[in-house]
């Protein structure tokens, strides 16, 4: 019941916003819709926390510790992003960057995107998972090109084509998975249900599943933004409106990784080897290295943080690939804290670039003096994202690193190199932006305080003291992913 509410709210909100259009209260309706989604998400989480995993809607939906925490995270970040986007989009509209119709489109598609991601998380059917993932891509393609500048259109086209191809390969992987499942479970919709598959995963044909995993890895890996299929990501993040960058980075990448991890569990159960894990580790570590060195060369602020997202998704993918309780716990935590931190950073970046009317880092200066919240928010956000204690990212990266040194010591230097280079690169680039005098072209703007403060507070809180329910959730999820 709660589950249906959770899915229906964004869908209804999307339709409502399509009708409301550019009325004055549209952003508030957007916030209200996301807040309602968040409340429903919390209610669902409480139910799962007290009563354990549940199947609903004739086995069509499946909720366990792993996906419910991501659902709460998704609805939470979408709520704060809606809060942030209220002022941000209004200002873009005043500047004449976008008109009535595009505001309508933006709001409706934002909610549809949230719906697609929640459907991705909650569905039990691996085929529907694919469909929802494609829907999530399609709903954001035209948001990336919202400004209609040549670069924005180029970025959106790249996003459309590359993710379209990627996801097509994932569908082939899903077909192969169904082929293997059909032998054991018989034809029909039942054979694609994840709960059924995971019960019989040891009977699934290993050669087929290994082959399927290669396609799924490349397919969903494109959406996760793993090197070498990451090219769409920096473009889409830098050219789209900042609220969209925040949700793409903070949420969509997580969802794609979620799909990949669900598939990995099946493949591991079938092959009984570490084959899938090794592939994920390879892609992960390559992403960390390439992204960290690319960070050094960036001039556009949003592009730089997009590369930072690639790096962090690399770390998470690597950790899931490594497996074992510590690494998996670290990976789950990392998904959470990265998502919170990165969206907070994108909020401050959005403010900073609106204050200077540019995304060029050379022209952004004196943020702390110009607007303390934006300046300090970005400083602390960057400190958190590079893994400084006492923030939550430090905890997760520490766990992942410890597990790496223990289980895959040869990989540890590469991981450390990536983290070190990122640390140096981000600080070198961010320090001149936040310090210094206020340049004449900087304008003072009213900013949305709540989203940034809330996110940073949570990341700090998780780093200092992890609440018991969160640890319980992660432990249960680790047990599920064994």
């Amino acid at each position: 019941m709660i589950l249906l509410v959770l899915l229906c709210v964004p869908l209804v909100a999307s339709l409502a916003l399509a009708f409301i259009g550019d009325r004055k209260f549209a952003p508030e309706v957007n916030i209200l819709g996301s807040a309602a989604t968040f409340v429903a998400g919390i209610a669902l989480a409480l139910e799962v926390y007290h009563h354990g995993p549940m199947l609903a809607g004739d086995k069509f939906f499946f909720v366990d510790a792993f996906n419910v925490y991501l659902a709460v995270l998704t609805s939470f970040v979408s709520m704060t992003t809606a809060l942030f986007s209220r002022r941000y989009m209004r200002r873009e509209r005043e500047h004449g960057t976008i008109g009535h119709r595009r505001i309508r489109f933006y709001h409706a598609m934002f909610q549809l995107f949230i719906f697609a991601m929640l459907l991705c998380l909650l569905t039990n059917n691996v085929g529907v998972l694919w469909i929802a993932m494609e829907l999530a891509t399609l709903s954001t393609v035209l948001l990336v090109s919202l400004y209609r500048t040549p670069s924005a259109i180029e970025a959106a086209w790249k996003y459309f084509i590359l993710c379209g191809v990627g996801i097509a390969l994932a569908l082939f992987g899903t077909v192969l998975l169904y082929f293997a499942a059909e032998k054991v479970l018989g034809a029909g919709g039942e054979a694609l249900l994840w709960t059924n598959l995971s019960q019989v995963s040891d009977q699934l044909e290993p050669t087929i599943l290994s082959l399927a995993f290669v396609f799924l890895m490349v397919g969903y890996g494109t959406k996760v933004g793993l090197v070498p299929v990451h090219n769409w990501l920096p473009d889409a993040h830098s050219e789209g409106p900042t609220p969209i960058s925040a949700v793409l980075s903070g949420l969509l990448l997580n969802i794609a990784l979620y799909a990949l991890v669900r598939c990995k569990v099946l493949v591991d159960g079938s092959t009984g080897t570490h084959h899938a894990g090794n592939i994920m580790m390879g892609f992960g570590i390559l992403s960390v290295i390439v992204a960290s060195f690319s960070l050094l060369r960036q001039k556009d602020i949003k592009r730089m943080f997009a590369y930072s997202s690639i790096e962090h998704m690399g770390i998470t993918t690597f950790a899931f690939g490594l497996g074992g309780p510590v690494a998996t716990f670290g990976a789950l935590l990392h998904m959470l804290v990265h998502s919170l931190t990165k969206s907070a950073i994108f909020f401050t970046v959005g403010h900073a670039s609106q204050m200077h009317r540019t995304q060029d880092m050379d022209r952004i200066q004196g943020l702390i003096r110009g607007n303390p919240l934006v300046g300090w928010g970005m400083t602390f956000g960057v400190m958190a994202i590079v893994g400084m204690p006492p923030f939550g990212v430090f905890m997760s990266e520490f766990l992942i690193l410890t597990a790496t040194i223990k289980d895959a010591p040869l990989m540890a230097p590469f991981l450390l190199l990536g983290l070190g280079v990122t640390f140096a690169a981000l600080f070198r680039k961010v320090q001149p932006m936040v310090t210094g005098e206020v340049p004449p072209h900087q304008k003072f703007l009213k900013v949305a305080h709540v989203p940034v403060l809330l996110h940073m507070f949570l990341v700090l809180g998780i780093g200092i003291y992890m609440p018991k329910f969160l640890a319980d959730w992660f432990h249960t999820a680790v047990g599920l992913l064994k």
Partner: protein
Amino acid sequence: MSYAFAAQLNSLLAALILLTAFAMLVQRRMYALLHLFAWQGLFLSISTAVVGFAAQSHHLYISSVLTLAIKVILLPYILHVLIRKLKIHREVETIVNVPTTMLIGIALVIFSYHLTAPIRELSTLMTKSTLAVALATVMLGLLMMITRRHAVTQIIGFLAMENGLFFAATSATYGMPLVVELGVALDILIAAFIFGIFFFHINTTFDSLDVDQMARLKEED
């Protein structure tokens, strides 16, 4: 229609699908390319119906009709209208290195046969040998997207890939469950809506649909 005859007929249709995939790879004229795509969809639709008849799985008839409606009628019609409105029907694309492209295409077909060998051994379906063709169609669609520089051509390549995927589902498992197939069809329709909008955006912004012009976003040195 006997089972053996159906299997033969299906193989013939698979061959035709592969043939159209190759023809699309090097077709320079917009309308001709679109017609090839429609033919491919038609072969796919017939093949699905034949498999559905032979295997007595009736939900394949629905898939077949769906394919006919979307891939043979609706999408080509939309693209036709778009091509006319964008006034690009006279455009002739320059394709470099046709022989090389063909050779790579052949290599991809061989590779597909190699990749699907374990599945052929395990499968008991009459369509087991056509799975390689399906994968080859996917790969050829991908190759077309890589080698061609026109936005409309890239989209046709993308749709040809989808054709290949659909054919793969029919060959490997007599089709995916209906809910999945309907969902995929819905996604394709939304995608069609989006690329339709895109063509106009690209055309008005860049004054042409040549994607080579889109080269702003690169890593600076």
